[in-house]
């Protein structure tokens, strides 16, 4: 028997209720929700929201292969500080997550760190090369439910069709990084007036939208389920909205940075703003926010992409794309005021847990009997990022010097606090 823990006086947000009360946890489970509960340990949650822990569908944890940028342990700690209790690990590792051995390794490293559930995704194609299918059935048997070549889109339409057909037989979901590569050669930033001034090759919206359109139509003929990663353009949102209206089994995510930052930031010549897909226009941001509110976009996912300092000290064209996200996601989303608190919990916990098919463990209502994977956050607290205090091994966050609103106070993973009062417990 572990000691009992009571989270005192928070606003407990569930699908059908929102009440102020206490949550009592024993042996990794919520045992009681009510008033004036007592336990051996207590955590104050007054003024805070108590919800199921966040689930990130899109984290680059860099291990194996690029431990200089991040390890599964440091990424897990960054996740815990961001209120996450589960992270889907993207497969563009070295070696990539296209074999059972690597999948098992990633999952084991996640367990060893013990700060969140690390859920490895698998590659769609061998080595993410876009040429032949990865052993999806083997990977599915090893527990993989989400497949993606993220970092690359699957360019070959025939191969993508086969992948969807095969995935349907396995009952797994494919997640696409939508980018028609021929249209983005050498691209550094969104194709816009700003890239005209800077003389940088543009990454046009159409390069994303063409693949969104193609894959929607492939889903229509295969019936397989499909998730769109990091949507960034107005027209992509419209395409997904129409596809959902047609009843297709499609879900989509948007990142905090595509909801908050615009292309003009590249005029600072700071590669911290280089990301793929690129930062876009205000009109795109508004369309993404509309998509969050009307349910076109199901999840907010970080695309947490750590890079070592020296890589981001290269020129704009040479620096790798990507920015940190796990520790700042909530603060960015709440500062943007894009939707209600309940919607934020849906977008960051309930929906992504379902898409990753870990909703038996994560993203459930905070009720007696539920797994105690919880997040307690202060939705009003304003703060700014101190790069020296990030848990991530890298510091490539674009939010230094910006005021964020909403901060995680406590994170409970399997009944044990991983974060108390904003401090990682180990």
């Amino acid at each position, binding site marked *: 028997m572990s000691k009992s823990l009571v989270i005192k006086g928070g606003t407990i947000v569930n699908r059908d209720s929102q009440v102020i009360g206490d949550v009592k946890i024993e042996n990794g489970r919520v045992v009681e929700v009510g008033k004036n509960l007592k336990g051996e340990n207590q955590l104050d949650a007054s003024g805070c929201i108590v919800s199921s822990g966040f689930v990130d569908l899109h984290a680059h944890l860099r291990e194996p292969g690029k431990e200089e940028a991040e390890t599964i342990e440091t990424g897990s700690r960054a996740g815990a500080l961001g209120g996450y209790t589960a992270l889907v690990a993207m497969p563009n590792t070295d070696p990539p997550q296209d074999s059972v051995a690597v999948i098992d390794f990633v999952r084991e490293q996640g367990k060893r760190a013990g700060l969140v559930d690390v859920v490895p995704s698998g590659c769609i194609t061998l080595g993410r090369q876009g040429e032949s299918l990865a052993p999806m059935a083997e990977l599915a048997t090893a527990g993989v439910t989400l497949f993606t070549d993220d970092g690359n889109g699957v360019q070959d339409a025939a191969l993508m069709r086969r992948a969807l057909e095969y995935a349907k037989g396995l009952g797994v979901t494919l997640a696409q990084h939508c980018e028609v590569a021929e249209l983005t050669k050498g691209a*550094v930033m969104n*194709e*816009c*007036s700003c*890239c*005209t*001034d*800077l*003389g*940088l090759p*543009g990454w*046009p919206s159409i390069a994303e939208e063409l693949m969104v359109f193609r894959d929607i139509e492939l889903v229509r003929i295969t019936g397989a389920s499909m998730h769109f990663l990091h949507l960034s353009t107005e027209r992509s949102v419209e395409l997904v909205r129409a596809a959902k209206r047609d009843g297709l089994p499609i879900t989509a995510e948007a990142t905090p940075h595509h909801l908050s930052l615009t292309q003009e930031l590249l005029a*600072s*010549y*700071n590669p911290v703003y280089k990301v793929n897909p690129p930062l876009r226009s205000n009109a795109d941001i508004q369309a993404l926010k509309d998509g969050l509110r009307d349910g076109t976009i199901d999840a907010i996912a970080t695309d947490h992409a750590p890079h070592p300092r*020296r890589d981001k*000290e*290269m*020129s*704009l*064209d*040479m620096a790798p794309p990507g920015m940190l996200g796990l520790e700042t996601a909530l603060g960015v989303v709440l500062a943007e005021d894009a939707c209600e608190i309940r919607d934020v919990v849906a977008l960051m916990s309930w929906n992504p847990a379902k898409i990753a098919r870990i909703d038996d463990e994560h993203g459930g209502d905070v009720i007696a009997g539920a797994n105690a994977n919880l997040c307690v956050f202060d939705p009003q607290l304003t703060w700014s990022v101190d790069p020296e205090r990030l848990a991530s091994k890298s510091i490539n966050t674009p939010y230094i010097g910006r005021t964020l609103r909403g901060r995680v106070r406590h994170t409970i993973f399997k009944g044990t606090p991983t974060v108390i009062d904003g401090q990682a417990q180990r």
Partner: protein
Amino acid sequence: MKHLRSIDELGVDGLVDLLQLTDHMAEINQRPVPKVPALRGRTVASLFFEDSTRTRLSFETAAKRLSADTMTFNVSTSSVNKGESLRDTVATITDMGVDAFVVRHKSVGIPWQICQWTKASIINAGDGAHQHPTQALVDCYTIREATHAQNFAGMKIAIVGDIKHSRVARSNIQAFTLLGASVVLVAPPTLLPPDVSHWPVTVSHRLNEVIGGVDVLYMLRLQSERMAQGHVPTLREYSEQYGLTQQRVQALKSDAIVMHPGPMNRGVEMQIDPSDVKNSLIHRQVANGVSVRMAVLFKLLGSGSNLGGQA
């Protein structure tokens, strides 16, 4: 003024100021001993990550005529090849005691990034397809010298060719329009940036339609790799549409000026020998390069002391 990185940052006053200072430098260059002690004890480092003949040589000549010490960083013999250790390179040279870096790099933004890593002045000698401010100064000075115009109001300048990939075009569009000229860009849509609607220019896709009305015809170099990238089908076709041919020379106004930043692609954008054109300023562009760069170095590193002494 600490750096010269773009014409935009310079502004119209800074631009006019430098053009006037260039007159002084041109006078020095006419002397039997074209050398003054103005920058004695100052050190200028050339940091060229891309090939250059005239820009590098004219900067080094300019520095020497002002009695500055120079050092040249040769990328082909250095450890830098992908830009990874750019910060270390800059910091190392800074430690040797450098007052200004003259930087050319294939990547946009490098002159701004370098400013984080050194206290020295930065002069942009070309960053990717972005800016090449001293070339624009040279071109403005050359037009001014030829026309005796203090500003370019009422002047019509056509810039012809690969605008999309041209830092010379981006700097010159800013400089020419700041001085009051009206600028028309002439190129096929594939060689224009995706959106120029916010630039103070007009656009034409037909050289024959504009050539008779321009005061300055500014030809850009077309690199042969643009063909492989599908920007133009063949060099021959480009040359026929946008090259300067004998017929097009005939169509020019009698006092129209022809310019080219070099190096020229003879047989592509220049189907004739420039010496066949009465008002070609191509050689003046090269000659003025030294005076303009002397003015820039003196503006950034000089203490305002006299330019008259003997070195």
